[in-house]
């Protein structure tokens, strides 16, 4: 016979990502939340911990030809091909809206060479309203024959150093899961000066159209995201949280507060929600509410008590 607990004061959900303080640990993942404005009719954007925008490159990119996405079992593949408006238009067209929001804005960047990452970062220096930079290192290094930066500790470190040296805001490096040992990559970018690591980006996958006997995606391969990859993401977050001392941000298949809390238990200081935004545009806000309810119901002082609190 429990008696109803009064709905107490709003619980303390603040988390620190290095020097960056977020009001709660829920961010929207790059490439899945547009430039935030798309979600304005449906989400109270100011309720989020942070918004991460679609990956930006130096020059605008058209991206891949259609078909770019395909549904898979509990997941989806995408080969958008990094379509984006380029850094100049991003600053002039997208930042004015974004900086008007009462939520930290994190800019996701990508390049084909270390030099491009450096230039991009330099261009973002001094731009008002940017809370942090997230570095997508899952991109192929054109100078190294297309091997992804994220698959080689030396290149990953070099990119991190280049961005960190140029940046005037905290730098979060986003790791690729398509590697033998992600802790090696995590330590490499930590050594390179990253303020935090976020993981995972998509797993590389493929789908085939049996009728046409062709790959479904024009790009042949694409990135797998959604609930299907959650077990892999959770494992990697757990491993990385045990190997680095900078904050870890968990990403991969999160679509509920329970999922987010699992990542936090595994060692994530915060989480990002990706594909789930497509299925339930309100999911990010609902996850914030769900975490608040959990903290309240379990009489926690703060959500920070749960970070890495897994008994293993």
């Amino acid at each position, binding site marked *: 016979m429990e008696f109803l607990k009064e709905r107490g004061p709003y619980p303390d959900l603040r988390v620190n990502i290095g020097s960056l303080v977020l009001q709660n640990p829920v961010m929207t993942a790059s*490439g*899945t*939340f*547009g430039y935030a404005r*798309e*979600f304005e*009719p*449906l989400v109270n954007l100011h309720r989020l911990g942070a918004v991460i925008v*679609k990956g930006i490159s130096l020059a605008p990119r*058209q*991206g891949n*030809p*259609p*078909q*770019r*996405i*395909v*549904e898979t*079992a*509990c*997941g*989806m593949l*995408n080969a*958008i091909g990094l*379509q984006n408006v380029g850094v100049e238009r991003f600053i002039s067209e997208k930042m004015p809206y974004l900086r008007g929001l009462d939520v930290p804005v994190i800019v996701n960047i990508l390049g084909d060479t270390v030099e491009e990452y450096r230039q991009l970062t330099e261009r973002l220096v001094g731009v008002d309203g940017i809370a942090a930079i997230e570095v997508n290192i899952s991109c192929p290094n054109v100078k190294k024959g297309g091997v992804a930066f994220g698959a080689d500790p030396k290149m990953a470190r070099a990119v991190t150093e280049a961005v960190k040296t140029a940046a005037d805001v905290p730098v979060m490096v986003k790791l690729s899961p398509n590697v033998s040992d992600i802790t090696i990559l995590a330590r490499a970018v930590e050594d390179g000066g990253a303020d935090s690591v976020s993981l995972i980006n998509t797993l590389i996958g493929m789908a085939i159209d049996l009728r046409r006997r062709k790959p479904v995606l024009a790009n042949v391969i694409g990135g797998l995201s*959604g*609930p299907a990859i959650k077990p892999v993401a959770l494992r990697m977050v757990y491993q990385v949280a045990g190997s680095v001392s900078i904050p870890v941000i968990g990403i991969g298949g999160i*679509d509920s507060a329970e999922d987010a809390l699992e990542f936090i238990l595994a060692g994530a200081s915060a989480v990002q929600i990706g*594909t789930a*935004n*497509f*299925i*339930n*545009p*309100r999911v990010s806000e609902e996850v914030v509410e769900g975490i608040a309810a959990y903290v309240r119901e379990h009489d926690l002082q703060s959500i920070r008590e749960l970070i890495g609190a897994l008994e293993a």
Partner: protein
Amino acid sequence: MSQHQEKARIIRFEQLSADNVRLTLEAPLIAAAAAPGHFVMIRAGNGQDPLLRRPFSLHQASSNGQIQIYFRIVGRGTDMLAHCRVGELLDVFGPLGRGYRIDRQAPACLVGGGLGIAPLLFLAKRICQSGRDHHRDLVILGGRSSGDVEPLVEDFRQFGRSLQCATDDGSFGRQGLVTDVLKAEQLEPGTVVYACGPEPMLARVHRICVDRGLSCQVSIESVMACGMGACLGCNVDAAGGGYLHVCIDGPVFNAEDLVWNS
């Protein structure tokens, strides 16, 4: 355009043919904001498989807060929707996209093939409501056989248009394609053609319009994840090079802005 995510109660379930179903939903916010050619994203089931929402054109949206979708069972998502019961709730969001640009002066010719008929009923209604003289307007509906066309004829008739039907097997209307009918019709100069249907049909409609110097709007499909411009997954080739995105630049396009493989 304002968008809304609603838990919409199913208030009517109509099996119009073996494969084709029409659902009437209570979605007042969406109904109020909707225009012909807009679509909604609907979640099939509550599970994680199928993962993505499914896009459906608005077949009707009325001032009493109801919307209708009309769809064919082609896979798992539509099969799950076809197993819903009256009274259940569906998670729907919309209205989305750019709809038909109704030219209030020009004579209208609506051409719908198969499930492409879906958005045209709403369009016919709005055109009718625009109040001008409609005796020159024309609706052409086609499908594989009677079941794709006949059940909808009454609904179109109430808007008082002249109506022509064709089926592949001749089981209703004349035997042949909607484009055969379109070709045979003497459309007045300045007529605007509003079409929806499978790609090969739209390509032919476009060709006919180009030949006759008529302007033509088509509603097209693509695979979609978000339906709202966030995933960038729904691109199609643009006539001027580069890409257009079906969910925000369309689904209704001027036919000449697209690339047609024919």
